[in-house]
């Protein structure tokens, strides 16, 4: 058993700052926020994804992840979230590699669409002002977002995800200590 690296230095204030970054990201899809810059999570977990899960996951949120045993041990210890084998049973799904199909994750129901999962998706890079064209709630005219390392077929899966509204999955994209979000309402056109 190797030593686990620390979680947030200040669990209360760091969680608050990370939450505001995620709230801003979900409220203004495609705008890039920073989180977790002081964390040193085990590979392949990146800082932003680690910060998001430290902030939002706990014993009440089943977690699915593909990050291997070191990442799993770290998240189990710091969040106390129960790890599940089926992506469809998770409130939070963490994908460091090829993610499960959006349609395989919890969608919520017509009466309780909030049961739709949050996919924390690690990608290699995020950049504003180029790439995809995002429109929808939270966006005045259009936001541009370049996602390097987005999974194959993501945009067509996203069209299907949007079509299920109000059910569906919300995505938080994380690269290094940077993140942005794609709530289920956002429309994405190829750049």
């Amino acid at each position: 058993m190797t030593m686990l690296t620390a979680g947030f230095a200040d669990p209360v204030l760091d969680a608050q700052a990370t939450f505001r970054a995620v709230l801003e990201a979900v409220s203004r899809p495609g705008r890039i926020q920073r989180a977790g810059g002081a964390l040193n999570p085990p590979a392949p977990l990146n800082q932003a994804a680690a910060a998001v899960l430290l902030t939002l996951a706990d014993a009440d949120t089943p977690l699915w992840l593909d990050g291997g045993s070191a990442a799993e041990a770290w998240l189990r210890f710091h969040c106390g979230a129960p790890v599940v084998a089926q992506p469809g049973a998770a409130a939070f799904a963490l994908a460091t590699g090829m993610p499960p199909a959006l349609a395989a994750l919890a969608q919520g129901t017509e009466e309780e669409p909030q049961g739709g999962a949050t996919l924390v998706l690690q990608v290699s890079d995020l950049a504003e002002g180029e790439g995809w064209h995002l429109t929808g709630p939270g966006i005045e005219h259009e936001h541009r977002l370049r996602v390097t390392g987005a999974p194959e077929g993501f945009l067509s899966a996203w069209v299907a995800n949007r079509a299920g509204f109000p059910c569906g999955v919300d995505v938080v994209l994380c690269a290094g200590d940077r993140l942005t979000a794609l709530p289920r309402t956002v429309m994405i056109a190829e750049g």
Partner: protein
Amino acid sequence: MSALESPRAEGATMEGYNFAYLDEATKRMIRRAILKAVAIPGHQIPFGAREMPLPYGWGTGGIQVTASILGPADTLKVIDQGSDDTTNAISIRRFFRRVAGVATTEHTAEASVIQTRHRIPERTLREDQIMVYQVPQPEPLFRLEPRRAETKRLHALADYGLMHVRLYEDIARLGHIAKAYDYPVMVNGRYLMSPSPIPAFDNPKMHRMAALQLFGAGREKRIYAIPPYTEVRSLDFEDHPFRPIRAPHACALCRSTDTYLDEVITDDAGGRMFVCSDTDFCAERQAATAQEAAE
């Protein structure tokens, strides 16, 4: 006031309670609800509301939302019917100064978080501001269909015929829609939503507002949200379009003719005048006028 304990609440602060009063497990639960509320604009999300050291009717839902978002860098403004000076507004400001150590202000322009009961400030809000509304009754269909299971079903089906019939009955009977407060809106073309008991005059300010709008109902344990730049339409009919109503006067103090006015009694002899309900806006306008006169 007793401290709420959590195995993860390592950051308990002075006086024995956690930063911003709520324990960290409760904040996480409320934060998750807020994020889903933003992702599903206008949809009510149940949450496990906590007892707060203020009675219901004092905005415990708004207070729990504010407590879950607030950080040391924030500046908080609290208004009650447009005023910063009511007992309610003063108590809530004092509460957050004590439990979160945040700066407070009475100036809309200086605030990063504005908790409100019954008004939206007159000044146009910015992207770096968040509105938190105190909501007594989150369900817009409550008076028409008291069964919660049934209203959930109607929202799932986007079946809002009941509300259209109710408003149309007003038109048939009175020639206009009688609702002056808590006038129902459609959010992003999908969910019927209660804007809380703000005057219908304020409804247009919600439409494509640059600021994020969050709503907390404490007794009813519901959270909902309107993301920035989101379409918010007051329900109306083609032959009876929605019209925001205000008293047809100028403010007696700042002479404004486009703000929401309260009628106030000025003396025992029944004297009365109309003044801006937004006290901060009115004071700034008076100061600006005085400045111009001096120059």
